[in-house]
Every structure is written in structure tokens, then in C-alpha cells.
């Protein structure tokens, strides 16, 4: 996987929910090795090198359209870095380093078993799943989507064209099933489950999968400094030794990174 660093122009930014933004930028690099894929991310920065915060912010690819060269990020405004990103307007520029990370192996996922794939997301963890569903659908394995939100879900209409079904769980009961997403997921019906969300959710999904011997793939999140595998600041201890979330990951087999107890 190769990453480059460049300036990108902002096409637009919208609020999708009170603290959730959708940022669309131009990604015009024509080289196929620098084309972003589902599960990969970029290091974003729209402030000077000598300005706080010190580090750029890793944000996953929400969507990419090769024809229009548009790259979309969906992120939660959480701290100093994302606050600054949220002020970006059409015409502004920002620095992008990427695409970073391994991403989901969509070709392998589409070929697993009879190709019944479930994609499971929690909150802002749904961000990398849109491009995943899109790529899965294009590979002939339209997934079923299971998502959990605290309260009102966001961004789901975008998923509809690429998913065989969409099921929603909310903590508040505002929409869909009242409870955790693991309450509506039946791993026995699938050959593979791909998940991204809070660790506690991914661990719950993995446990459920393990009970039914359904393979489970997860995408992790960590604080990062370089995003390129250079600083080892985002290392996670796995069953096969220490691995960088930014370069070896962020996508891992769940059994490598989670325990069952």
C-alpha cells in the first residue's frame, strides 16, 4: 500500500447530524495504486505545521467516486482537530496523506462461502462502511447492513442502493430495535461479518460470530502520529505479535485482536 501527500480542494461540507459532518474533497490522482479503497483512511490537516493540534487527524474514507474524483469523509466533531476540519468550506484546501492502511479485502469477502455477507456498524463507525457496501455490491455480494446508534441514525439513505437489507438498532429506541445491534444480528445466516464501531460493539459482534463459527473482520481506531507505519504510536498487541493499526490495519481478523473472555 502506498500513500502520497498532497493539497486537496474542498468541494463542500454538510452537517449530517448535530456533531457529524460530511466533507467532500477533490482527489484527482489518476494512478491506480493511490486510489482509495474501503477501510482505508487519510491523515487530514487544514492548519499550519506550527499550529495546534500537533498531529494531523486520521479519518476513514466514507465514499470515493473515481469518475468525479470526489473523496468523501464522514466524521464526528470531537476535539480541536475535527473542530478545525468542520470549519472548512467549498474552495478551501487541506493537506491529505494517504490512502493509508490495508483496507477491507473486498474480493476475498465477496468470494467467501456462498457470498452472504453482513456489514455491522456502530455510530460513527459506520463511516468506512458505505464504500465497503458499494465495493461489495460491485463485486456481486450485496451485503445486509446492521447498524446501531445511540439515538437518531444518520446517513443510512446512502447505503440503500448497495445493501440487500438495512436493519437498525438504537439505544434510545428512537428507531428500529430498542437495544444493541448484537440483538438483531444472526451470524449463522452469514458466511462473513465485517464490523466497525466502538470496541465494545466489535467485541460483542465477534463473540456472537464465534458462537456460530462465522468469520469476523473488524476495523480498529487508534490515536496516530504518522499514519504510515513509521512511528509505532498506534500499535495494538495481536495474537500474532504487535501490529500497527495504521499500516498493518486498521482491518484485522477479529480473533487476532479480541479475546473471547
Amino acid at each position, binding site marked *: 500500500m502506498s500513500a502520497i501527500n498532497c493539497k486537496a480542494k474542498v468541494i463542500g461540507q454538510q452537517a449530517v447530524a448535530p456533531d457529524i459532518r460530511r466533507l467532500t474533497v477533490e482527489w484527482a490522482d489518476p494512478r491506480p495504486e493511490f486510489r482509495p479503497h474501503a477501510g482505508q483512511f487519510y491523515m487530514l490537516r487544514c492548519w499550519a505545521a506550527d499550529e*495546534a493540534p500537533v498531529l494531523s487527524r486520521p479519518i476513514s474514507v466514507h465514499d470515493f467516486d473515481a469518475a468525479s474524483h470526489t473523496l468523501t469523509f464522514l466524521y464526528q466533531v470531537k476535539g480541536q482537530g475535527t473542530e478545525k476540519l468542520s470549519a472548512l468550506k467549498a474552495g478551501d484546501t487541506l493537506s491529505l496523506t494517504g490512502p493509508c492502511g490495508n483496507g477491507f479485502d473486498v474480493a476475498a469477502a465477496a468470494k467467501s462461502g456462498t457470498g452472504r455477507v453482513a456489514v455491522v456498524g456502530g455510530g460513527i463507525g459506520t463511516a468506512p462502511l458505505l464504500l465497503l457496501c458499494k465495493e461489495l455490491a460491485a463485486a456481486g455480494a450485496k451485503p445486509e447492513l446492521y447498524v446501531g446508534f445511540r439515538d437518531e441514525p444518520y446517513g443510512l439513505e446512502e447505503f440503500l442502493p448497495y445493501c440487500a437489507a438495512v436493519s437498525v438498532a438504537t439505544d434510545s429506541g428512537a428507531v428500529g430495535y430498542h437495544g444493541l445491534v448484537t440483538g438483531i444480528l444472526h451470524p449463522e445466516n452469514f458466511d462473513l461479518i465485517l464490523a466497525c464501531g466502538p470496541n465494545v460493539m466489535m467485541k460483542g459482534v465477534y463473540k456472537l460470530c464465534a458462537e456460530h463459527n462465522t468469520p469476523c473482520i473488524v476495523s480498529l481506531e487508534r*490515536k496516530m*502520529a504518522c499514519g504510515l507505519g513509521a512511528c509505532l504510536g498506534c500499535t495494538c498487541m495481536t495474537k500474532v*505479535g*504487535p501490529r500497527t493499526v495504521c499500516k498493518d490495519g486498521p482491518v484485522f481478523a477479529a480473533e487476532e485482536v479480541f479475546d473471547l473472555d
Partner: protein
Amino acid sequence: MTDVDLHVDLLGKRLASPVIAASGTFGFGPEYADIQDLRVLGGISGKGLTLNGQPGNPGERLYETPSGLMNSIGLQNPGVAHFIEHELPAMKTLGTTVWANLGGHTIEENVEGVRMLCEAGIDFLELNISCPNVKQGGLAFGIRAVDASEVVTAVRKVCTVPLVVKLSPQAENLTEMCKAVEAAGADGISLCNTFQACAIDLERRKPVFANTFAGLSGPAVRPIALRMVWQAVGAVNIPVIGLGGISTGKDALEFIMAGAAAVQVGTANFLDPCACTRIVNEMADWMQAHGVHSLDEIRGCARNN
């Protein structure tokens, strides 16, 4: 137009520029190969090695401060043998000098690691006696001059390439430390490594880092690092490589004017993945604007009065 020549002759090697990527911030180099032209760099100091490798520290490893970054990586590395077999070959193809950075828990480990690395073929050996993030070894040799002298003396006997010793700002007495390392046979000194620092997580009411203390780097430490480089240059007759928060060409030139033979760039690589080449260009721009042809014309100039 002034013709600017940024090359540096360092311990028998020709460096394309004085800007060397600092250990721990640049992987082994290939990570940045698609991002910038690495041939412009003076060298790459690889991720700090230990003879047998280690998994690094548990818990938080990064914490941002105003103009700084705290880290507690804990010398996570694959070990010398793995490096020689898997990472060194690629590092040698990058078109810049190869610096192997090695630390060790014991003198014997350091000696064995240096022997293997020299045999495998590297340009510089940077002996790290200054890592604040490992409980044993690491900084153990970097506090007292007598301990540093012992390990450098032992390593010197087997080191067949230029030996640069990377010092800690935590040294008990910096000038004594520099002199001891020089007397023990070091060919050069690089300083300084990160500054031991602390942060508390209010919600958990505990230190942010599992080891309580971590290493602070970045622009926040630069003026202190510059002072230490100034002192080191005054203390020894071997080349001093300056580092600590260098983020711009002007920062780098300050270290050169203080007498540094070359500089290393670390945390700035995270603020800007093209920092190293940008700093080289900014140095050249300044020199051109000021009619300076080579770094020799300004190296140490701030010391003359």
C-alpha cells in the same frame, strides 16, 4: 543567483544535505518513499533497534501538548537480525546514508548488535543511550558519564563504521557526558533525545502513560535542545548532530549557526510528511537570499564574537 551547496562531509561520508530523518519518526525509510524524494536527505536513522527486539509499551503511546508530542513507544522493534534480513536491504536502496540506531539493555547486547550491524553494512551507527521509555537499559547508560563511557568503550572496539552516540537531555552533567563519550571513542554525538515528561488523565485520575513518564519532543523543546547543542559543540572536537523540535529551514540553520555539523528532524515528520525535504529547500532558499554558498560559511558563526 547564489549557487547553494548543501552537502555535508561527515566522518568520511558525503551527505547530500545536513537533514537526517530522526530515529523513531521515519520507520526504516520506505514508508516515506512515495511521499518525497529521499535522495535529498542527508540520511535516515532507522527505528531504534535492540538486539533481540521487543514489543514496546502497553497502554497509551501518544499524547499531544502545546507545540509538542509525548510518546511512550518503548523501543518496539523487530530485533537486529530481522532488521538485517528484512528492512536493511530496502533501506540501502533509498539513495541516502543508512543510520542504524541501536540501544541495548546490557553492554554485551550493545556490542553484539553493533558487530552484526557493521558486518551487514551500514553507513553510521547511532548508539542510543538515551531512550527514556524503557525501564531497563535505554537511558541507564545515558545519565552518568561513567556509565556512558563504559558502553561506548566496549562498542568502539567492534564498531567499524562511524560511531555517533545519541545523548539524552537527562544527562547528569551534559558537558562531562559529551567529553566522556568523546574520550571513549565516539566519532560524533547526536542530541538530544526526548525530554522526560508527564501527563495526568483527569477522568481516570491516573498518569496518561502506563510508565508514568514519557518523552516530550517537538517545537516545544527546541530552544532547550539548541542550548544543549551549543554546549556540546563547545565541549568536544567531534561533530555534533543537533536535533530537538526542528520544523523549518530556519530552525535547522539556528542549529548550524550554533555549530552543529548536521541536524535531525523528528516530530516535524508527523506535522508534515514532507518536512525533511521542505526543510532542505527552506535552508537553500535562505542561503540563496543571503548569499551563502555553503554551510561551512555559517557553521558555528553565532559563537564568534
